[in-house]
């Protein structure tokens, strides 16, 4: 039998006031009318706790767009689940924050698009940066709430990483997460604009290491490196169906944020099946669990227990075959597909090189849309 999952990612809604060009939500956004009612989410949380999960990550879209967020936090807390709110902060105010704390919220992760207002607002597609800074000050005042500042980095802000870290530090979090864009959903659509150069990546590694050393014992800095520049794939989600379950706004249960793009897999819905059955019995969660599905070179590779063959969604999105070795692996027969991308990203003739597209550009990046 499968070891129980560690955490539930509850994607409460796809509604979001921001339109970030690197949003990890699927291109097919769930509509308002598809969203699960409070009662079903409550059952999902109960089932998650019963399955032995430790954390629930409340995310979206913007989870604050759900009017029942407070009661869901309260339910999760009463089930002894660790509650983590992943938010843009838009929709939060002093009163809501106080009631979320009273409901038992353990941790809040606030994302920033940049340290510079104009660049941040350009990535988000709406002027929200100043409000987020004001909110960070409110959060910082809450002594009982753990606080992470999340910075998403890419070609258009990596050159300012030093000042972005100072900015994040000034907001007073216990933890800073610096995450390179990963190319799924809207980010994949905008990959040409967002993929950093090799030089940027190399410099950023040094900057992060220095900041980690300087802030040791004060602020923990976690760094998500860009896998296109790596020699081996990331152990995506800790392996398919090994640690995590994601429930999307409509109740569809996935092993990760992106798996719905993979054709030919029937993902179950919490309206029809309990989480425990989905985890243990469903064909979808067993599809890439373990090693039986692996092709060569994974099947005989010493690293197969470290990275589980990498990311199935990335394999599908880039090679067209979800059961292929993750193409970022230097041993993958399809690595050239990644190298071609890197060659473009590192070419000065790339139109996205250095500057973000002008708003009136004929070939602009695509802002994440709103669900219908």
């Amino acid at each position, binding site marked *: 039998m499968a070891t129980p999952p*560690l*955490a539930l990612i509850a994607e409460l809604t796809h509604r979001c006031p921001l339109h970030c060009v690197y949003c990890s939500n699927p291109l097919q956004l769930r509509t308002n009318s598809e969203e699960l009612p409070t009662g079903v989410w409550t059952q999902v949380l109960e089932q998650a706790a019963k399955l032995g999960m*430790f*954390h629930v990550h409340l995310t979206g879209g913007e989870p604050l767009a759900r009017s029942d967020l407070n009661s869901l936090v309260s339910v999760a807390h009463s089930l*002894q689940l*660790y509650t*983590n709110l992943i938010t843009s902060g838009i929709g939060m105010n002093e009163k809501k924050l106080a009631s979320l704390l009273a409901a038992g919220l*353990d*941790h809040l*992760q606030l994302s920033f698009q940049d340290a510079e207002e104009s660049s941040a607002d350009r990535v988000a597609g709406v002027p929200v940066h100043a409000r987020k800074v004001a909110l960070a000050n409110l959060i*910082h005042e809450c*002594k*009982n*709430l*753990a*606080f*992470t500042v999340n910075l998403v980095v890419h070609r258009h802000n990596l050159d300012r990483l030093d000042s972005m870290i*100072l*900015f994040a*530090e*000034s907001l*007073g*979090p*216990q*933890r800073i*997460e610096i995450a390179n864009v990963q190319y799924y959903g809207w980010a994949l659509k905008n990959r040409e604009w967002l993929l950093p150069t090799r030089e940027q990546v190399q410099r950023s590694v040094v900057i992060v290491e220095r900041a980690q050393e300087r802030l*040791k*014992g*004060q*602020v*923990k800095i*976690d760094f998500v490196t860009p896998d296109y520049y790596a020699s081996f794939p990331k152990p995506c989600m800790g392996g398919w169906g090994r640690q995590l379950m994601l429930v999307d706004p409509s109740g569809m249960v996935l092993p990760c944020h992106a798996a719905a793009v993979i054709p030919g897999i029937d993902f179950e819905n919490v309206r029809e099946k309990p989480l425990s059955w989905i985890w243990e019995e469903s064909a979808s969660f067993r599809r890439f669990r373990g090693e039986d599905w692996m092709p060569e070179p994974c099947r005989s590779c010493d690293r197969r227990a470290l990275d589980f063959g990498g990311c199935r969604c990335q394999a599908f999105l880039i090679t067209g075959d979800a059961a292929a070795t993750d193409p970022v692996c230097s041993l993958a027969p399809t690595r050239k597909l990644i190298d071609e991308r890197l060659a473009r990203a590192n070419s000065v003739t790339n139109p996205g090189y250095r500057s973000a597209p002008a708003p009136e550009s004929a070939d602009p990046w695509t802002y994440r849309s709103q669900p219908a």
Partner: protein
Amino acid sequence: MASSGSFSSGAGLTTLNRSSQPRLAVGCRVREGEDGVGALLLPEGVLRLKGTAIDILRLCDGRRTYAEILAEMQGRYQSADPKQMEQEIESFLNRLQQRRVIDF
């Protein structure tokens, strides 16, 4: 811009001494498992803790001093070499402090 003095997020003195009163940092808590294995819940994940590690963390309540924690542990494990035990506990607490799991 930001100096360490600007942090009011719980990061206090960063050197462990006998009168330090270690406590779990905000956002970190211990959950008891049914199988006797404790889980340390952190914002970004779970650390499963066994035996003495979980015992030590239970003693980090913000009231007991480091000296008291040492005495308590040495009392419980009288056959262990006290010097070696002190070194191990000190290095365990320092590692957790650097990960922002406990404050002194």
